[in-house]
């Protein structure tokens, strides 16, 4: 038994070794990873780096408080003092974008992760079993998709009582059907491959076949779907916050900033531009990472140096 454990870990090691090698050689994945890691870094240390008031010499250590209002300085265009300008209440947008990363990434990442787990399971199970199970699960998903996302999320949060965590639960539920549909269609085609039948012939349990044989072959489209949907969750979070059901002002999140800045688009476009840019960067980061991961996980895409 001890030898078997040993070689198993050796096998695993070889497996992960290959994964890391392939990941390093994949430019897309690496760029995506760098962007995402940088954003998470910003999110974690936001309070410590909101110090860039270039006008105070030498580089003052007095940070702009992201929640501190200053009506005299409202709607100032970007300057050395306020790198991204100030908003309608005179708050420093740069600091708010940095701190906003926290909420936006937290909400986006956790809700999509939860949606991935639920949606993938539902979709792969439906696609594998087909028949009545498929009909039942997918019709339930259709029912959920027939509501406009905002309305469904609103209802769920309203029922659960408003809080950030409940927003995440609501978002996860809203995006589960989208993931489930992609997972199901991928599973449907994989299900017909002979290796699934071979696994049954080998005596494997359904659970093993679904999660070890079918699922790994569905990963590609799922990662792409998830990396796109993460942007929608960030925006939906904003809508919910705007309606008073998510993050409460003055706590900043990117979506909320866009939503509130919308009214000042004509006079002060930077109110919307910078948080939108932040979302775009995050989405590009997740997309690159998702795309790259798909290639890395597919043995056919092997890059040999």
């Amino acid at each position, binding site marked *: 038994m001890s030898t078997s454990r040993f*070689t*198993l870990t050796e096998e695993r090691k070889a497996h992960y070794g290959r994964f890391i090698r392939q990941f390093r050689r994949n430019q897309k994945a690496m760029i995506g990873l760098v962007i995402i890691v940088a954003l998470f870094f910003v999110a974690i240390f936001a309070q410590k780096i909101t110090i860039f008031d270039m006008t105070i010499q030498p580089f003052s250590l007095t940070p702009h408080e992201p929640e501190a209002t200053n009506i005299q300085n409202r709607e100032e265009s970007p300057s050395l003092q306020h790198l991204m300008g100030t908003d309608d209440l005179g708050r420093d947008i740069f600091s708010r974008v940095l701190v906003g990363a926290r909420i936006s990434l937290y909400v986006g990442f956790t809700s999509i992760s939860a949606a991935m787990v639920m949606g993938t399971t539902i979709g792969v199970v439906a696609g594998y079993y087909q028949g009545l199970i498929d009909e039942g699960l997918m019709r339930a998903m259709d029912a959920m998709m027939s509501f406009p996302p905002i309305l469904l999320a609103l209802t769920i949060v309203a029922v659960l009582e408003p809080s950030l965590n409940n927003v995440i639960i609501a978002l996860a539920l809203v995006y589960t059907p989208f993931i489930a549909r992609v997972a199901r269609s991928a599973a449907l085609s994989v299900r017909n491959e*002979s*290796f699934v*039948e*071979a696994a049954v012939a*080998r*005596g494997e349990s359904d659970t093993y076949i679904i999660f070890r044989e079918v699922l790994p072959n569905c990963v590609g489209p799922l990662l792409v779907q998830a990396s796109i949907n993460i942007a929608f969750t960030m925006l939906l979070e904003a809508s919910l916050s705007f309606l008073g059901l998510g993050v409460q002002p003055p706590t900043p999140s990117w979506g909320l900033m866009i939503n509130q800045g919308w009214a000042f688009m004509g006079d002060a476009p930077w109110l919307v531009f910078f948080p939108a840019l932040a979302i775009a960067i995050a989405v590009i980061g997740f997309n690159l990472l998702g795309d790259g991961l798909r290639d890395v996980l597919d043995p056919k895409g092997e890059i040999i140096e």
Partner: protein
Amino acid sequence: MTTTDSLLAVDDLRTQFRTEEGIVTAVNDVSFALDHGEVMGIVGESGAGKSVTAKSIMRLIRYPGEIVSGSITFDGQDLLALSEKEMRSVRGNKITLIPQDPMTALNPVLTVGQQIIETIQLHQNVGESEAREIAIEAMEDVEIPDPASRIDEYPHEFSGGMRQRVLIAIGLACEPDLIIADEPTTALDVTTQAKILELLNDLREKRGVSILMITHNLGVVAQTCDRVGVMYAGNLVETGRVADIFEQPRHPYTRTLIDAIPAVDSDRNRLYALGGSMPDLQALPDGCNFADRCPHAIEACRSGSDPALEPVAGAPGGTEAACIRADELDLSEPAVEEGVERRHRETHTEPLLEVNGLEKHFSAGDGLFGNLSLARTDGGSLTLERRYVKAVDGVSFTINRGETVGLVGESGCGKSTVARTVMQLLEPTGGEVYFDGHPLHELGKREIRSLRQEMQIIFQDPKSSLNPRKTVGQIIGRGMEKHDIATGNEKRERIEELLERVGLQASDIDKYPHQFSGGQQQRIAIANALAVEPELIVCDEPVSALDVSVQAQILNLLDDIQDEFGLSYLFISHNISVVRHLCDRVAVMYLGKIAEFGSVDDVFDPPYHPYTESLLSAVPHADPAQMSDRILLEGTVPSPLDPPSGCPFHTRCPKKIGDVCETDEPLPEAVGDESTHQISCHLSVEEMSEPVTDRPVAGSKVEES
């Protein structure tokens, strides 16, 4: 070599594809000529450049492909010099293409009439009604029954063979000078193939049209062509008259191609299997491309450039070969592997698998209510009834230990369903399956799971049967772990041993399936099946997706490991030659039922059951001297949704004796003293042995055998 009177002359044609890895020369300086009214075959394995040659002639090569050099002269015209617009008036008009897969080549939303008329109006200045008449005439020519009414039907209302006829009708409608048929019968059943080949032969005689037949099947070439060109790795390696080439090939590759085919009437001699595979077109070796696999290669073959096609001294006129040793080699005799004994058929008596009255019915349609349909019962009242596809309807056979039982029949006859039901991959609707004494039909899921170790299956498509996300070691090792056969280092050693046993390398263990060729993938699948040390392996068309030389390798491998591992096989195939080559006993299936079951000799030599007889006669012989009298079956296989009453074969049977065939279902009856040979037919053995005649059907005397 271009003669002025030839219809088509291809000179030094070179077609290349740009890929990420570099330039691939798919057709490498190919030259040949086709006379008026001549049928020429181009044979070769996949990747040899046959189809690209055909497409180049029609100028259908698209980016990233490109015709780089050479000339194609058709009817005095240089096709490569034509503008795209001028070329369009040649395509479909002077030169037409019959595509490979009739199922996808017709547009499903247009009637077949519209599709034929479209072609006619494109090239001929005729009105709608006149074009329609021409179309009906063309359909008549390709022997589609009742063309005047069928012209308005949609493609899905036609069977595969009929669709292929429609495609030929489209090809013929503008009275072309040249038809390029790209594997026209590969997607069809053997009985349908026989009819299509017959049709092409007739058309050629009647109309004097030239045909360029692209195929991988030497049997098709032998039965239809005047001349043949053999392609290998983008080169034409031999051309000549069909009779001459089969008599005495001048290129070693041609010899191996011929030897690799199991002959339909031969005993189970070991096949000559060509080792290795076609070289990578981007990294062609020095010297002759074939040298690495050639049994006659000498030093001189491996240097210099690839030999050019040259006339062979002492060979009949028109024979050319691209081999530096062509003049000295005598290849008229099949190559026999030395030291390999012919395997003797043994009698096996201890039953391993017994199948009794197995049934599998599928619900016709999706979902809960999909299979409901309105039916008018005899009384005239409308009733709702559930409809079932009776894929397997009362099948019985046994497999003894160490024995190979073949299951042969056309597509849709239920062969694969039998395999899956026997393996309990599908739950049987009825009947009994005993495996090694265990009643599988009574056992629960868990008990069956533990028995799975004893039964393994090998699939048709090796690419699909290996999980692309797992390494070879993970795939093969999983079964060993699952059934506690080996773990850890022992497991790895065993996998390596197995890989070597099936002709791969131990170092292949950490590779992924996509890094192997089709034949190698099938070897992995075999190793995977062997890994759990099974008693029975079900082989579901294991060589159908493979090239002929690779097919021979796999068949030999299956043969070799049988005794070594004490295996029994249930071997499913539509290819009678292969079944006859490998199997001890054989069951012939038709429409979910077994028509005949017995030892290979009893069933095929001579054939008794009318269906067996017609199946056997439909196989194209890879020997032009042996023109078989084909028994062409009428119509198509009836739908298993609504099978004929009585004998399922009565609708097509050339020996139908009368009402009894339509009303009574014949039961399997033992023939003579041997209880091992069973035939389901109302005819007596003597009657079955008589040649097919036009016997009066209606009102004839009913005889029971």
